[in-house]
Structures are given as C-alpha cells and as structure tokens.
C-alpha cells in the first residue's frame, strides 16, 4: 500500500503539471507587451483589443460556427432517422460501415474527399467542408445514438403505437425526447469536432473559406503575433464553459437516474 499511497499522487500531480504548464505559459504571454520574441516586457491588454477589432478573426469565426451548426444538424438528422426508422437487424448489420471513418487517419479521408471533389470538378468551399465534417460526425453520432436507442424500453415505443400514434408521431414525441441526453451529448461532440477540425478543412476548404483553425494555422506558420495567444485564451475560456455545461448535464442525468 505504501508504494501507491506516495507514488501515485505524485505521478498525478506531475501529470497535471505537464498538462497545464504549456497552457498557462500561453495564457500569460497573451498579456505580454512584446510582439516579436518570447521575452517578457510588461503587461498589456492590447492584443485583446486587436483581437476583437480584427475582421479576419470574426469572419473566420462566423464561417466556423455556420459550418459547425450545419454539420451538427445534418449528422443528428441523418443519425437519428437511421437509428429509429431503419429496421433493427439492418442497422445492426450496417453499423460497422460507420466505423470506417474512425479507422483511418483523418488525412486519408481528406485525400479521398479531395480526389472525389476534383474528379467531379466540384469547387471547394463551405459545402465541401460541411460534407467532410458530417462524415466525421456520423462516425460518432451513430454509435452513440445506437447505443442509447438499444437501451431504451421497447414497451414505451410499442405503447405509443398501441395508443394510435403513427411512426412519425412516435419518432417526434416519444423517441426524440427519450434520446435527448444522447442527442445533446452527440451534438456537442460533433459541434466541437467540426469547430476544431483542421486536416479535412485544410484539404477541402479551397481558397475561398477561412475557418478559425485554418486562420490560426496560417498565422502560426507565418510568424505568430501574441494576438493568437489572446485568441487562444478566449477559446480556452469558452471551451471550459462548454465542458462545465457538459459535465453539468451529465451530473444532472446521473442525479435523475439515482
């Protein structure tokens, strides 16, 4: 017992230090009054002013949000209708089909999509990005929703039919509300995946659309400014709010179950 009572807590502390020191440094340097090197010169909030005044950032953010929303909508719609309306045996059989996008590195998917689009001379843009992100999204949505749907009490659905509801009514008034926690979780996950996606965006965006990750990458590559640190800090705050929200939903769910 002595081994684990000293070794493990120390290891955990070191682990969290390793995880958070770089992030901490990044945040600190967003307040650094020095545009060129990584030396500390003084405190300033200028980079935040620059950030909120930057048209490019807002434009990229708008694109990213639009694409993420469309992706969430499409993958949830495709996923939930497939899960409910498809016959159980068939869904069970085709489930493996949707793991394909997880079994290959994203860059292979991106190359494939790029080949497809150039083969049919589809011009790259927001639509092609939504297509690619939805492909990624389905790989997560369908297993999550399916897992939850199988756990549902079949009697509830059958009761709905017995009481005269049509398939459509059952879907909207019984199944969707029952699946709500899974839908929210999957939706949030896909939203973040789309918002965060870099590789597929890098290949399938073309020159016309700039998303937030693409913008960040181009700035980092061409000599970064502390504005990127400011942007990162803002994004960190937003994503921690997201995680809090997410864990709040989970905690609530667990409480309800108890």
């Amino acid at each position, binding site marked *: *017992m002595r081994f*684990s009572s000293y070794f*493990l807590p120390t*290891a*955990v502390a070191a682990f*969290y230090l*390793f*995880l958070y*020191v*770089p*992030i901490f*440094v*990044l945040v600190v*340097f967003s307040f650094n009054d020095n545009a060129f090197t*990584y030396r500390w010169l003084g405190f300033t909030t200028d980079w935040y002013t620059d950030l909120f005044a930057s048209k490019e950032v807002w434009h990229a953010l708008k694109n990213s949000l639009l694409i993420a929303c469309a992706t969430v909508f499409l993958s949830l719609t*495709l*996923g939930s*209708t*497939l899960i*409910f*309306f*498809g*016959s159980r045996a068939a869904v069970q059989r*085709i489930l493996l089909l*949707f793991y*394909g996008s*997880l079994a*290959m*590195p*994203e*860059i*292979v*998917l991106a*190359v*494939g*999509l790029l*080949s497809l689009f*150039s*083969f049919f001379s589809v011009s790259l843009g927001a639509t092609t990005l939504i297509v690619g992100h939805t*492909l990624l999204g*389905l790989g997560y949505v*369908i297993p999550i929703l399916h897992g939850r749907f199988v756990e549902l009490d079949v009697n509830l659905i059958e009761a709905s039919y017995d009481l005269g509801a049509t*398939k459509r009514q059952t879907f909207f008034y019984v199944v969707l509300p029952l699946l709500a926690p899974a839908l929210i979780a999957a939706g949030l996950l896909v939203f*973040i995946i789309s918002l*965060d996606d*870099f*590789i597929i965006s*890098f290949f399938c965006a073309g020159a016309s659309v700039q998303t*937030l990750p693409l913008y*960040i*990458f181009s700035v980092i*590559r061409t000599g970064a400014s502390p504005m*990127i640190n400011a942007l*990162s800090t803002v*994004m*960190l705050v937003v*994503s*921690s709010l*997201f995680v809090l929200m997410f*864990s709040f939903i989970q905690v609530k769910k667990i409480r309800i179950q108890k």
Partner: protein
Amino acid sequence: MNVKQRIRDFISENASFVFTVPAVLWQVLFLYIPFLLVVYTSLQHCMECSFFDITFSHYYELFDRAYVYIICRSALVALGVTLSCLALAYPIAYFLALRVKDRWKNILLFLLTLPFWTNFLILIYSWVFVLDHNGLINTILLKTGIISEPLHMINNMAAIFVVMVYYYLPFMMLPLYSILEKIQHEVLEASMDLGATNWQTFRRITIPLSMSGIKTGVFLVFVPAFGEFAIPSIIGGGQQLFVGSLISHYFLVARDNQLGAAFTVISGIVLMTCALLFHWLCKVPVQVAQKEVAS
C-alpha cells in the same frame, strides 16, 4: 392524386428504407467511393491520360526513392508515442478511477477533459513557448545557472515526440479511465482475500479486465499519430517528414496526385497491417492470464 401526396405515401410505406438510405449513401459516397478513387488515382498513368491507362510505375517510384523509410519512421514514432501514452496514462487513470474520492474526482476529470475540448493547434502552439530559445525551460535553466547557453530544443524529433505524447495523452486516458471505473472493488478485494499480492492482482485481474480500454486507447492514439501532419509542421519546422506531411505535400504543393495517392495507399496498407497485428497481440495477455488462472 397529386405528386406530393404520392411522395408522402411512398415515404410512409417505405420509411425504413427511405430513412436508412441517406446516411448510408453519405458514408458510401464520401468515404468508400473516395477510397476506391484514391486507389484508382494511384494506378493512373497521368492526370490527363485515358481512363484505362493504368500503371504501377508510381509504386515503383516510391520504393526507389526510399520513402518506405518515412513510412517506417512514422510507424515507429507512432508506436513510441502510443506506448509512452499508455505507460503514462495507465497509472493516472488507475489512480483516478479506483483511489480518488468523488469530490476530487470531478475536478480532476474536468481538468483532464479540458485539453480534449480545446483547439489542438493552440495546444501544440503553447509548446513553442516552453521549448523555444527564449522559452520557459531555457529561461529557467539560464536564470538558475544550470546552463550558460540556451539549449536547442525545438525543430527536432524529440520535440515532436514530446508534443505528440502531450497531445494524445487524453485520448489514451479517457477510454482507460472509463473502463477502469467499471471495475468493482469487490473483485479486487476477493483477489486479495484469496492471497494474491498487489502485483498479482494488478497483473491478473486489473489488466485483463481493462484490456478493451487499452485497445481503444491504443487505437485512438496510434491511428492519428501515424498520419500526423500539424505537429511536425508547427513544432518540427517542417523539416522532419512524416506520412501526413508528405501526403499533404504531394496533394497541395507538388500537385502530383498520382504519386500522392500511391503513397497514401501504401501507408494505409501499413497502418492496417499494424492494426491487425495489434489486434492479434492483444489476445495474448488475456489468454496467458486465463491459462495461469486455470493451471
């Protein structure tokens, strides 16, 4: 009966078919057909050649140019990253899942998932501030007088390796944690009651029970690490070629789709071989444990 009504009837009569098709079609059209297209492109003689002008020359070219070396190196680095992540993550996940009180657990889990939800370019970029000439480590070492000249720590393989481990750790942690959390204390206590030592309990009970988590974690780390593209290009300064960087070079810079496709196919085959090998390897420890228990 108008057209609208007819369509509506058709949908309600064949609902299970109508609503299965779109998702499946999406997957086939945008995932499986592109795969075939990449394979076809890799065999195509040139961009403007006729459809049936097929050749293996791109593959020969890749073997000639010893790009096999880059694939092997990517696979080795990915393997190293995966094993390091496993070695680092397992004790932490074990501790979190089985030894921490609930109140602390939530906070620690929150801190663990936060990087997971953070934009990964930002996470990678933060390491520039740690490893750079004027970065955190050099500043501390210079101030404390341990070194007199700044160390050169960025733009090399070691930096890429560390950042990859850093980035992929949560991908290993979360599946491990969620499987370890399901292990019931009673099982471990029973093992101890029956006279097993800590180590025996760990090796014969905990590890076999968490095997599926290990598998998921290894898979989640190895596959993307093998195709890594952003980390070498930000931390490595684009000097260290990886499978991902080479693929993107062919498709986006050199515009040599045929060669790029051939390279992608070869890498894909290597990756699948690795995955199958790993799948087979995973069965061994469980079987060994079962045999030991039986004997």
